[in-house]
């Protein structure tokens, strides 16, 4: 009886935690998976979360066209230099 109650309590705790995990993660996972879709697929909508075919074109495009190389370099260099200078 006590065992069963404990089990029920435990599973209730996990249920609540899992629900909030899904809520917290869903938008993030959706966006990460959407980054592998084509523009048409995103615009078409539908309930499928996973891309029909995985393609990495978006990342290449972002890296090359949107001048992301420069930005990444900037964000990588300035904190590194700051940390080194601070450490003395």
């Amino acid at each position, binding site marked *: 009886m006590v065992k069963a109650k404990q089990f029920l309590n435990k599973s209730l*705790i996990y249920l609540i935690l899992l629900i909030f995990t899904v809520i917290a993660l869903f938008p*993030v996972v*959706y*966006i990460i998976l959407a980054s592998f879709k084509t523009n048409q697929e995103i615009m078409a*909508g539908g*309930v499928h979360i996973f891309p029909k075919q995985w393609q990495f074109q978006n990342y290449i495009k972002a890296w090359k066209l949107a001048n992301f190389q420069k930005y990444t370099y900037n964000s990588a260099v300035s904190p590194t230099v700051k940390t080194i200078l601070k450490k003395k």
Partner: protein
Amino acid sequence: MAAPGSGTQDAGQGLRGRILLEGTIHVKRKTTKYSSYTLNNSIQEILMILPMFIGFLLFTAYPIFWALRWAFFEYDGFSTPIFIGVENFIRAFSRDPTFWFTLYNAFLLALAKLVTEMPIAIVLAVLVNNKVKGSSFFRIIFFLPTVFSIAVIGLIFSILFSAYNGIINELLVYFGIVEKNINWFGERWLAMFVVLLVSVWSTFGMVMIYFLMGLQNIPRELYECAQLDGASGIKQFFHITLPMLSPVIQVVFMISMIGTMKMTDLILVMTNGQPGGGTEVVMTYIFKYFFQYGDATVTPSQFGYASSLAIITAIFLSIITFIFLKISTRMKEMY
């Protein structure tokens, strides 16, 4: 010679005056030495505080002074400012119902956020604080939304909630909860609901961490005693956890309320005050007066008016905070 400290107590009558004298001299010398020590100390303290204080003067006090000054002027950033006295304030109080509506909106959002976010955060903190398997994993997951920048969050959620191809609509239709797509940003209350949801989503992890820190300060013995007395888990929660947590709750309430009242970026990215100014909050309203939003030739920015609105809002926020602190003093003394 007697020790200067005990001189007055056990010395003979005759010697008493001398020793007293010596004692006072001694004490006097000691105090002068002490004061020079404190002088040195305070110089050091001032020097240490100075960088922060200069920053405060330059980036907080100085801009506030200018905001106070422009509040009494009519100024668009280019032409010469015209002094108009309290005309800006009169305009805000008598001829600008939209401003009060936005203030009301912000207050409503803050209140709704408190009501929804605090229970969620407390319950999650208590659950995660338990000895459940993978509690650190859950902590990380719940904290994850806080890491993203608000602009990114706004974009993500406007994609998720978009009316024709958003995944939320698709899922709701797929599971038969609604019959046709909901236009989330087409109606005031729906849009407010989405904004509330997103702002809760983006901060509940942070609030949970605050509560977690508060929970870890509660001594375990209390729970052991309660267990011996036969109090159930729910009873323990209401009679130990909540009262012991109340000082933390008070502070978090205040921070969250002020933070939500000042919410700007999320609204600007997600709804931009649409539909029809229904979700406009006070800070976005001021923002749009300050940084000429849209066509500059049609609506030039009004620094003066925006400053006066900002001052009125600041005063209102302080009043609300003050009232809240007055009401909630009991929470601090609870344990």
